């Protein structure tokens, strides 16, 4: 079993898809010689050439839109938007074009486009390179949204995103690129819309995405030492959402914490809380707790950044609130 970093796992999925299928190509800013601002696409230019590993001008609207047009003509483009914050520049193309073509055409058009993007706090990139915006896209009918948290997941999910016939927003987290995991020799596609139970538990379910999956696992281990048994579930695909797995888990544990790095208010966790309270109402023993960033642009100074975004201790505190305990009680 080879061990891959999250970064290598993304690259592996791209390379395998491009080897297998001439219709797959990638484009984005600085992705060729430089290998992307995060080094994800390093080496792909050498293997696949400049025709299929396309450096682009700094033109998010045109990059995403060209991906849409190529996809409508039967290609399977993978477009990289360097930072999540920059998806805002391409918002019109993503929301009005990619997401709506199929419906507006009465089902004539397919847009098999994958838009990879990354971001996140934890290294002081400042307010315009750190925001988590996945919730914005979950609100748009016609888009699928993926947020992978481990190397195996990111590889299997990216493969499925590329081969999905719909536009997929594919979120990666900046601070996860270096984490490693053993993966199978063969790439095993992970179907979109399937949650992963990372850790089974009896007392509380933590539903977490992205970096917070790892924070939740750390919190769960700490809680375990205090005899609180925590289940950690990662939806992995935010749209479509594997509601069944989330609700079943909470029906079992009777308590729920939702956790993500994006701001709590109006966040993805609000929707998850609504889904869980409806599906598991009769089972709930405590109010659903939400963990997320404070309602602020991400500041630069490390102490302020750390204060704004959530960490494992925030998840742990929320876990303890659901069981009516304080830390150390």
């Amino acid at each position, binding site marked *: 079993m080879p061990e891959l970093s999250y970064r290598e796992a993304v690259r592996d999925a791209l390379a395998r898809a491009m080897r297998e299928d001439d219709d797959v190509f990638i484009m984005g800013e600085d992705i060729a010689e430089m290998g992307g601002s995060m080094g994800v696409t390093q080496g792909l230019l050498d293997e696949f050439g400049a025709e299929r590993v396309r450096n682009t*001008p700094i033109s998010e609207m*045109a990059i995403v839109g060209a991906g849409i047009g190529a996809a409508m003509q039967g290609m399977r483009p993978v477009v990289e938007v360097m930072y999540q914050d920059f998806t805002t520049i391409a918002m019109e193309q993503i929301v009005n074009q990619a997401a709506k073509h199929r419906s507006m*055409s009465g089902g004539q058009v397919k847009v098999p486009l994958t838009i990879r993007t990354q971001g996140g706090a934890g290294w002081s990139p400042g307010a315009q390179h750190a925001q988590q915006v996945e919730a914005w896209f979950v609100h748009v009918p016609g888009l699928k949204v993926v947020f992978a948290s481990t190397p195996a997941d990111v590889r299997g999910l990216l493969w499925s995103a590329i081969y999905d016939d719909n536009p997929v927003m594919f979120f990666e987290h900046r601070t996860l690129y270096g984490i490693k995991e053993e993966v199978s020799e063969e790439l095993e596609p992970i179907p979109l819309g399937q949650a992963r139970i990372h850790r089974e538990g009896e007392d509380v379910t933590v539903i977490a995405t992205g970096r917070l999956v790892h924070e939740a696992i750390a919190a769960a281990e700490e809680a375990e030492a205090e005899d609180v048994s925590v289940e950690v579930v990662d939806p992995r695909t935010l749209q479509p959402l594997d509601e069944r797995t989330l609700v079943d888990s909470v029906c079992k544990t009777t308590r729920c914490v939702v956790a993500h790095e994006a701001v709590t208010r109006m966040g993805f966790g609000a929707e998850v809380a609504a889904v869980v309270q409806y599906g598991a109402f009769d089972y709930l023993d405590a109010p659903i707790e939400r963990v997320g960033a404070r309602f602020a642009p991400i500041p630069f100074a490390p102490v302020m950044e750390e204060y704004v975004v959530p960490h494992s201790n925030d998840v742990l505190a929320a876990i303890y609130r659901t069981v009516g305990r304080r830390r150390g009680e």
Partner: protein
Amino acid sequence: MLDTGAHSSTRRSSKLVVVAKVEQKGTVSEETLRDFFREMLLIRRFEEKVEERFRAGELPGFLHVAIGQEAVAVGVCRALAADDVIASTHRAHGHTLAKGTPPNEVMAELYGKVEGCSHGYGGSMHLYDVERGNMGANAVVGGGLPAIVGAALAFQMRDEPRVAVAFLGDGATNIGTFHESLNLAQLWRVPAVFCCENNGWAESTPASQQLPIEDLTRRAEAYGMESMQVDGQDVEAVYEGATRALEHAREGKGPVFYVCNTYRLVGHYVGDPQVYRPKDEVKHLRETQDPVTKLRERLDLSDEELDELEREVADVVEGAVEFAKAGTDPKPEDALKNIYA
């Protein structure tokens, strides 16, 4: 302002040489021009009928007709090869009809029927016909331009001799997607043609209030892109120019910015009181710049010939209205279909 001939062709190497009108003319046969006339007349009568039915309260939503711009739709679409593709604008009826979608299907779409070319999901501003190479009309100004670059890129990568054509208005040359798309298209030399229907108005705002330059081809020049400019009221000139532009793109020489100077002989939308426009301007333009009248004069059609064509076209348009009215209403819950593939 209209430049029908050798627009700056010798001065700037980046521009396609458009030979003078007199030399250019005469390659389109009389028979073909008659065919163009019939098509333009059909589009004109179709849109007049649409205005009438909208005012009668039969059509939902709101509508933009392109009365006065028929020569652009017909001249460009007739120059296309069968598997070339187009993307249209909010003023899409003419492009869609000229690209080959049957009038019945366009009319049924305007009535919101299942038989419509977008099966009732799109409406006037979202006419699609993928089978016939129509990638969709776009209600966001400039919204469809990047996708045309992408379609052309797909053709280039697969080595297919096809061209992707975007229609846009002069107003769209002010939006970011226009500039990003032209830049990328030229950078990658993709087989695309950007056909700008320069009618001098962005909704109610005249060129003088939205364009700091008069000659729109200068915008393409900024990207090193070939450009051409023709009299958009002269279908023969439009057709011949489009043929050259398409050939240029198809041969792998890169995209072309193709400006057709035209006139909108109506308001922005059906019912627009046009308070922003002198009352006699439209009257004057209708008398002097109607592309249908111009072609009729060029062809020297007799009253009998015209009457016969009018009857034929009226039958088609009436038939389309009957077809549309007899069409099937979608089930409300069909709204939840066709969201994901």
